[in-house]
């Protein structure tokens, strides 16, 4: 919103103050100022001139040769404007003067010398009207500086609309002036108003059909209006504040909106007999004054003349009842509609106007009658003949409750941490329009109607009023007196961090972040079907409408998009999935670790075992435990039917490790292989960790024994282990696979068993006896020593 300092000065005396400093304190105390624009600097030596004579230019059909009285002498001017006439008073720049486009110099135009320029309002930077010369509309002698008769010099500042969202009172200059008054400790002058004196008994009938959507509807008729353009000074002000002069009545309604924040609407009185404020019984069409046909639904509040719609309440008037140049009587609507209803209608219609933007903020219904009085005052000031032609109709349907708040000084002290004097508190609140009474230690504060629609309701709101005017720069910066306590990071955070460290530092993996929803298009490229899961109802691309139920597909997408990064890399993410819905119908949100390894340089088998080592390392580093991997049938179609295993610990399934189904593997890459790990971090965290149990290393010699075994299809290493684990030997320290090889389709492997005892050096006989038992066990599952 653009704010004119000249306008503010009508209500607050700002003389002797540094305006830019003041605007800065407005930013700190009230709302953010985004820009400050100094107006009038680019205009110099522009005076009132009078066209004394007009001759056609001999060489041009468009140009005229003028004699212009510039006050000091008569000037020869070549002018192209179409609206020149004798004795017309215009804005004249003598050579050497300046307009926004640049300095004016003597020039020869089509063979004739021109000693200056007659200007349009556009050329002066006072309007976007380029149609012809701007005609001076006040009495001033020729040669009078234009800046002395019009408010050309001004400072305009732009307030960020978003920072006014919660301040309905600041959507007009008068409300902003109140802030300046409070900030400067100066008086806020009242608005000059008409008393709407009227002798007759004519009164416009108003019926409110939807009292739930209307707070107040006031209107009055005015007639005998003869002027149809507003004064230039008003037009300049409107233009500086971002609006365009249209005609007197439309300009006045805009002026009042910018002044008070109250939108008003002027209907052509000839089109209005009685007013009905209601929603239509059925959907209908309506042409708004921007000449656009709108679809009106049954929950859109309309203003109707009887049963004919004439405006969309709070948003825009209709084309039919629009004020035109020769309108001589108006019905002025000053109303207060429900903000939520206006916002909904406005977004449904895709039609956001200055009026609707204001209503959305919950305006003060007390303003409607004041606005009508202000309109009448301004109209009669400009057009002396205009008359009030009806009694004021005022349907005050709903009122906001009056709000009174009681608090004491101790509360202020506690909330602020500093000592703001009582007089300061009273002065600030009074300046802001609050009624303040002291009752012993208590302050009883009455919230003014313009702050009571939603903005100020509780004690904490009052604190804000006091402190923002006091100035946050004047606060102390002090730490708390709160006691110390130990700081704990939640296990899920600390263990997630540990997992990340292991993956990045031990395995050189890269952490990525992918979206929580499935991208159907990308899934398709890899041949992955999106499985049914929780849906996002309103996403711009319906392709993304499903929440992921596994981390792996989104990571596979990422791998696919990074294939040119390296021949061998791995990525991971700790993110969220929805693993279906819970019994109560809500999404089963889980924290998951997803890892995908990709490699063009090793076999799938080697990569699979690398993945296994990663899983083992994560468990051993964080839990001092080993996970149990066991083959399972795949839960997802993209998992390999054979090479998918579950990861469990302490009997709880925590995740899976798998290679890809050939269909997906082929689509991912013809030459590269991928292996996936997914671990449920929430479950992982619940697995208790083993403590480190320290043992003194044995000082006795250890003995090892190598067994080269011929493997049989279908026998797992876990089954082999059982053959020696079943002996429960304290002396068997470790078993390692030291060699594997394949010959003629037969797999062999060599394991090294390491024996030692704490208290003695082992005898060969002793070890041999154990080996014999182990070999017997192996034989039972069909495993023999290699010949």
């Amino acid at each position, binding site marked *: 919103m653009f704010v004119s300092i000249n306008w503010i000065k009508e209500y607050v005396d700002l003389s002797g103050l540094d305006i830019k400093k003041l605007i800065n304190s407005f930013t700190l105390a009230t709302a953010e100022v985004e820009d400050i624009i100094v107006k009038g600097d680019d205009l110099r030596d522009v005076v009132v001139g009078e066209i004394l004579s007009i001759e056609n230019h001999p060489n041009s059909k468009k140009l005229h040769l003028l004699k212009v009285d510039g006050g000091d002498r008569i000037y020869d001017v070549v002018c192209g404007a179409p609206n020149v006439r004798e004795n017309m008073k215009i804005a004249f720049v003598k050579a050497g003067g300046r307009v926004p486009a640049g300095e004016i110099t003597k020039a020869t135009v089509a063979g004739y010398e021109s000693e200056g320029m007659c200007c349009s309002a556009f050329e002066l930077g006072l309007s976007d009207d380029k149609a012809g010369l701007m005609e001076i509309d006040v009495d001033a002698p020729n040669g009078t500086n234009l800046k002395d008769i019009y408010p050309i010099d001004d400072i305009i500042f732009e307030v960020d609309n978003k*920072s006014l969202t919660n301040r309905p009172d600041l959507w007009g200059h008068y409300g902003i002036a109140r802030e300046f008054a409070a900030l400067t400790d100066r008086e806020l002058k009242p608005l000059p108003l008409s008393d709407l004196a009227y002798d007759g008994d004519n009164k416009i009938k108003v019926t409110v059909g939807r009292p739930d959507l209307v707070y107040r509807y006031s209107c009055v008729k005015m007639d005998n209006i003869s002027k149809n353009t507003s004064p230039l000074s008003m037009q300049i002000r409107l233009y500086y504040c971002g609006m365009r002069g249209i005609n007197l009545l439309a300009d006045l309604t805009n002026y009042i909106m910018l002044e008070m924040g109250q939108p008003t609407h002027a209907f052509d009185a000839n089109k209005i007999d009685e007013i009905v404020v209601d929603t239509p019984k059925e959907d209908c069409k309506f042409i708004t004054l921007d000449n656009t046909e709108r679809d009106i639904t049954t929950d859109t509040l309309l203003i109707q003349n009887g049963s004919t719609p004439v405006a969309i309440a709070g948003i825009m008037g209709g084309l039919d009842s629009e004020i035109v140049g020769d309108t001589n009587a108006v019905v002025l609507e000053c109303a207060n509609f429900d903000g939520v209803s206006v916002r909904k209608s406005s977004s449904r219609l895709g039609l956001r106007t200055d009026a609707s933007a204001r209503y959305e903020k919950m305006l003060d219904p007390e303003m409607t009658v004041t606005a009508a009085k202000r309109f009448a005052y301004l109209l009669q000031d400009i057009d002396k003949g205009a008359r009030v032609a009806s009694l004021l109709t005022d349907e005050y349907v709903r009122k906001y409750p009056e709000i009174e708040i009681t608090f004491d000084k101790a509360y202020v002290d506690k909330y602020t941490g500093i000592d703001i004097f009582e007089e300061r508190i009273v002065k600030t609140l009074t300046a802001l329009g609050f009624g303040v009474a002291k009752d012993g230690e208590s302050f009883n504060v009455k919230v003014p109607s313009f702050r009571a629609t939603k903005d100020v309701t509780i004690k904490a709101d009052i604190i804000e009023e006091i402190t923002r005017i006091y100035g946050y720069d004047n606060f102390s910066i002090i730490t708390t007196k709160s006691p110390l306590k130990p700081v704990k990071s939640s296990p899920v955070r600390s263990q997630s961090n540990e997992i990340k460290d292991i993956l990045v530092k031990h395995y050189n993996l890269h952490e990525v972040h992918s979206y929580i929803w499935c991208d159907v298009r990308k899934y398709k490229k890899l041949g992955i079907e999106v499985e049914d899961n929780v849906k996002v109802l309103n996403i711009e691309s319906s392709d993304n409408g499903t929440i992921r139920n596994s981390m792996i597909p989104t990571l596979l997408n990422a791998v696919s998009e990074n294939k040119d990064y390296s021949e061998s890399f791995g990525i991971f993410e700790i993110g969220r999935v929805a693993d279906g819905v819970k019994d109560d119908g809500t999404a089963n949100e889980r924290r998951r670790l997803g890892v995908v390894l990709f490699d063009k340089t090793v076999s799938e088998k080697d990569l699979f075992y690398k993945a296994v080592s990663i899983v083992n390392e994560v468990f051993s580093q964080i839990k001092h435990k080993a996970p149990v991997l066991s083959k399972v049938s795949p839960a997802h179609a993209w998992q390999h039917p054979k090479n998918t295993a579950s990861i469990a610990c302490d009997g709880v399934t925590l995740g899976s490790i798998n290679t890809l189904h050939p269909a997906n593997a082929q689509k991912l890459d013809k030459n590269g292989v991928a292996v996936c790990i997914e671990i449920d971090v929430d479950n992982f965290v619940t697995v208790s960790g083993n403590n480190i149990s320290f043992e003194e290393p044995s000082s006795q010699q250890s003995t090892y024994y190598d067994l080269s075994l011929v493997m049989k299809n279908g026998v797992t290493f876990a089954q082999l282990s059982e053959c020696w684990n079943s002996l429960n030997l304290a002396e068997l320290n470790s078993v390692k696979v030291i060699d594997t090889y394949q010959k003629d389709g037969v797999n062999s492997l060599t394991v090294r068993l390491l024996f030692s005892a704490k208290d003695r050096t082992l005898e060969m006989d002793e070890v041999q006896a154990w080996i014999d038992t182990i070999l017997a066990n192996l034989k039972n599952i069909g495993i023999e020593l290699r010949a």
Partner: protein
Amino acid sequence: MLEKAQALKAQFEEKVNGATVPADLEQLRIEFLGKKGPISSLMGELRNIPNEQKKEAGQIINDVKQFIEEAIANKRTELVKLEEERLINSAEDYDVTFPIDEVKGSYHPITLVQREVEDIFAGMGFSIEDYDEIVDDYHCFEALNIPKHHPARDMQDTYYLSTNQLLKTHTSAAQNAILKKYTKELEADRPIRVIFPGRCFRNEKIDACHENTFFQMEGVMVDKDISISNLIYFMKTMLSEVFQRDITVRLRPGFFPFVEPGFELDIQCLICGGDGCPSCKDSGWLELCPCGMIHPNVLTAAGLDPEKYTGFAFGLGLTRLAMMRYGIKDIRVFNSCNLKSLSQFENATFVEPEKEVK
């Protein structure tokens, strides 16, 4: 005896000079000083020498023996040294500038920034919490004093789910649950000091400056006498740590339904120092984090008595902070999964070397 000894000495000297490797010396030692060597036999001859000459003869033999031992030791030192020199001269000269192809892992930039900020807050006594991404209307809005018809709840801002839930639009969605979780602490006179970073979602069109998925971090502190002055202190201290220099902050009124009063906190522009530059749009200030005193309705919704307790809350855009920290101009980098960008974020530390205390 003397002649014999001198002959022996001469014989030894000739041989020792001819030794080229330490093994030769060992042989010489056995040859001359061994049980069957000449020194031994000379010692044996002492028996035949008259008693009055024995002492002198013994001395002569000992001198020779000592001479041989020393000579061997010296020669050994000399040979070892020669051998070492030979090894050095023949050693390969390694090229320390030779490029080593090291594969390094990387963290997501958000993780790095998050850890850094978490450390700062942990140092100031804040606990770190984690929260859901899928939440319900109550936690995201209702409990935060955001009324039913507030524009923030519109479909164009919030992703609603088929489960009657939504993707959280701000980390504040955790406030209610966290305040409740720590109520017991508060009742035991221990203040609530918690930060909770998290991923948030807004229904926005993505471009270089806008993402629909981004990270925030929220912090709250609640105790019996928490004031606006405390809020300013914590913000200033925290931000000075984050940016590792003394930061000037200012508060402006800002409206957020869950705080009252609410503020926009600006920091003096880090690039121009407040004089005005393109980064701060000539204002000298950068809008950095919204904050405020927790709204009494929010405390009440969490079961805390606003007459008894007050507190402050603040939000920090972690994604934005990471952009500032690393000079990332395009926000899309974060969710791109593009390793050409992301692999650059090795475990970087930003701590300035500590200055020596004098």
